[in-house]
Each structure stands twice: as C-alpha cells, then as structure tokens.
C-alpha cells in the first residue's frame, strides 16, 4: 500500500486512517480489516460470528465506507455475506442506542465499529430498517454457507481471520460497545463517488422480516435497543388508515345528499 503519494498525509483524516490501518494490520480471530489497495477511504473486513449464537461458525465479509469527514462523521458498514440479521449491500451506521446517528463519537474507531457489529448481531432486529429477523435455522444455515464466500478483491474470506487470540476489549471498551446501536440508512443520501449501491431485489423481504420477531434469541437482553422508528411508523399508518376512513365517510355522505334528497 502506497498511500503516501496519493493522499495529503498532513490531512488529519488521512493520518488517522493510516494509523488505524497500522493498528489493524495483524488479523485476530474476531476480525480482519484492510483498506483497499487504491482507496484509503474504503475498507473490506471480515468478522467472526459470535460464539454460542446462531452466527457461530460464520464468517461475515463486508465493506466499510469512510466519509471524507471521518472521524467526525461515522463510517458506514455494508455487509456482503448473507447473514439473516442485516440486509446485505445496505449501509449500516453506528450510534448510541436510542439516539440518532449524530451521536457517533470521533473517539470511536474502525475497531470499535467491528466489535460493535459483532456484539450487535445477536440482538433482535425488531423490524428496524435494514434489519432481518430470520429464524435461527436460517441463520445457522447461512453461517455454514458463509465459509464458502470468496471476495473478488480479498480472496477466500474464511482464511483471513487469524487463530491468534485478539486483544480483548478493555472494560471501558466493552461498556462502550454495549451502548452502540447499528441502524441502516433509509437510502443512500450522499453519493460517494464510485461507491455505487446495488439495491437487492427481494420481493420476499417484507414478509420474512417479520418472521422471527417472536423467535427465541440468544440471552443478550442487555442489548435491547429502542426502536423509535417502528413505533412512530405504526402510529402513522394508523393515522393514515383513519384519514382514509373519514374520507370515505364524507364521500358517502355527499353521495347520499346528492342522490337521496
């Protein structure tokens, strides 16, 4: 990787990313992350499915898109490997649970993001945008299948994680990771140059999303997160229904007046 010639190394964002690349050079058994050879602002990563969950044995590959304002603005995570928890090819971003993405903190890093992703996988999706609530069987099946994945730019995904034990998260780090929530964006808002989004064609999604909501999930209940979006959209559709009902009543009354009098 020769980024020195390509980027302004005096720029704090570039300095920071080169530092992070250096910190994450050695893969651990939990994660592997690398900037692309020609783009310091796009990384590929692989994380291990958390043990003792439906994702055990899975290896999940994805992309990290870093905004030009990084670390002031959060990185976006995009999963490539089908996993049954997050939609693939959709931007997911980090925030403090129950808050907007603006609560991303510049002192978090790519490592924080990956650890948070691992910790967040077994939490209920609750129908939030970008979440999937597949059944445990489906997730276990996808976990097994995930080992076959090969990335055109990184090669065989399963070989990336190292067997060396990772630096365990410090106590502060784990309490921090527990506060983080991940949420997909409704739609890509800013164009990030060549980062074109392929939207997944999936007609069966709306049905499947709801499937596993009441299913048993792993005992990680401390990671329950508020899903403001869902609550408000339900009440919105109720209001919508009510509105149409009233419109129908009014139309009925007008008709009655016109034809019965």
């Amino acid at each position, binding site marked *: 990787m020769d980024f020195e010639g390509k980027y302004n190394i005096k720029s*704090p964002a570039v300095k920071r990313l080169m*530092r992070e690349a250096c910190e994450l050079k050695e893969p651990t058994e939990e994660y592997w992350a690398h900037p692309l050879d020609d783009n310091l602002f796009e990384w590929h990563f692989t994380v291990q499915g958390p043990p003792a969950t439906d994702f055990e044995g899975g290896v999940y590959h994805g992309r990290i898109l870093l905004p030009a304002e990084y670390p002031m603005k959060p990185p976006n995570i995009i999963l490539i490997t089908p996993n049954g928890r997050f939609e693939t090819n959709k931007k997911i971003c980090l925030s*403090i649970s129950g808050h907007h993405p*603006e609560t991303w903190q*510049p*002192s978090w890093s790519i490592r924080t993001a990956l650890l948070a992703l691992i910790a967040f996988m077994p939490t209920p999706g609750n129908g939030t945008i970008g979440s999937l609530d597949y059944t445990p069987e489906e997730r276990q099946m996808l976990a097994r299948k995930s080992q076959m994945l090969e990335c055109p730019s990184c090669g065989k995904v399963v070989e990336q994680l190292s067997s060396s034990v990772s630096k365990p998260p410090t*106590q502060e780090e784990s309490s921090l990771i527990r506060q983080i929530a991940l949420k997909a964006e409704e739609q890509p808002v800013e164009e990030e140059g060549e980062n074109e989004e392929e939207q997944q064609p999936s007609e069966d999604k709306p049905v499947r999303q709801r499937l596993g909501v009441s299913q048993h999930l792993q005992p990680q209940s401390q990671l329950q997160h508020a899903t*403001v*979006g869902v609550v408000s959209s339900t009440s919105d*559709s109720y209001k919508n229904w009510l509105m149409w009902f009233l419109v129908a009543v009014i139309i009925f009354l007008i008709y009655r007046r016109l034809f019965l009098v």
Partner: protein
Amino acid sequence: MLNVIVPRDLYDKTALTGTMGDEKQVSSTTFDTDANQDELIMQQQRRIEKEISETTALVGDLEGLGMLEDEYAGDDVYCQKVHDLAGKYKSMRRTRPDGNCFFRAFSYAYLEQLLEDREEYERFRDLAAKSKNSLVELGFPQFTVEDFHDIFMEVIDHVGKGPTFFSQKELHKMFNDQGYSDYIVVYLRLITSGQLQRDSEFYQHFIEGDRSVADFCHQEVEPMYKESDHIHIIALSAALNVGVRVRYMDRGEASEVIAHDFPEGIHPAVHLLYRPGHYDILYP
C-alpha cells in the same frame, strides 16, 4: 413517499444574517406515512448543514459592531442591546453555526491571545500536554485520544513560535481548515467530558432527568455538532482554568446585554456573544 417541506427561504435568510444559531430543528416538516422520521430529520439536517457550510466560514473575519446594528434595524429590543454592546466591545468575529461554535469560538479567541502572552502560553501548554494521560486514565480509548491530542499539540506548538513565526493570519487559516479546526473541537470536547466525569458528583445537579453524568457526556458532549449549554462552559473553563465572559443577547427585558462569568471571580480571558443557540467572539 418522502414528503419533506424544507423552509428554504426562511433558512437562507437566517443563515446569511447569522441569526439562526445552531438550532437545527425545523418545525414545518411534514411526514408521510411509513417513512422513518428519524431518517428524514437526519437527511434534512445534512442538507441544512451543507448549506450552512457553503455560506459561513468556520471562523469569520474581524468586523465592527455596526454590522450587528444593521442586522437588527427596526427591532427595538435588540437595537437597544446592540447599542449597549457597542459601548463595551470594539469588534466581533462570527463562527459557523454548526453546533461546535462554543468550542471553536473559545479556542480561537484563547489561542489568539496566547500568541502574545508567553507566560500564560507556558502554563497552558504544560496543562495541555498532561491532559492526555488523565483522559486515558478515565477510560477514553488511548489510540484515538492520542490521535486528537497529537494534532491539538501541533497547533499549540505553532502558536508557541510567537507572532513573528506564526502570525494571527496563519492561526486564522488553521482554524478554517476543517481538518485541524474539528480536531481542536474534538479534543476540547474530550477535556470537557473528562472534567464532568472527574467531578461528576458536582455536575450531576446540573443534569435534568435521570441521566448519569457519563451518559450525558456520551450523548451531549463527546459527539460533534452537539450544542453547548452552561454546563459545557462551566466544565471547560474549570478544566483549563481560563475565564470566559458570555454576553447574553436575547428577548429579555433588560436594555443591557447581561454578562455571565465562568468560573465566577476569575479575570475573563475570552469574551463571547450568545444569541439563542449560538456563540460568536467579542473583542473588548
């Protein structure tokens, strides 16, 4: 299905005159069904942020208070206050209303003075150099704190060269370089958070609701673009031992712009003008 009405004309006007402050909530927003409100608000905010950054410098040029008088022409309450302010201050410098204005205004005004004040500079440099370890001890991730601290010290070391080798002009340029400028803001946010958490028993009284000081810091202090309240100013001025005088200009009864010193009883090194939701720099 997205149906967001952006009060564009309203926004443009206020951004140009600089009276909008950091208030980012836009009231006349309507949502269609099923749309995720959070996401829509975010999108709208991003649009507004973009417009703000295109119209206002991070830290502006020095200007006389006459500009302020023109701005409020016809508004009796404010005119009186501007008049009072003009008797006390010679000039001002506007900052971008992006939620970071207190931290940016404070650090600009203070470092500008350090260019000329060797003794105070030495005291501050010493304090700044030591601040990293105490943040790491409090549990901030060492790796990233180091990153912010390095850039912060780089700027301070430039200031230490004195006005002959590092002019006010160069400082101004650095503060308008988003990279450096935001790094300074982040580091001051961390120092503020550190102070709040170290002295959490005291600061707990200032926090409404049942949020802990640590939660408050994670949600309202450490993230960028979060507006500053009294509690931020009290904590930062205490952490650095630098006095701040804030002049309040609002719709209140008094014909004067009321001053509030943080911490009380200490000579104010930095003077800021507060208008609801926003801070600018004042020069006596």
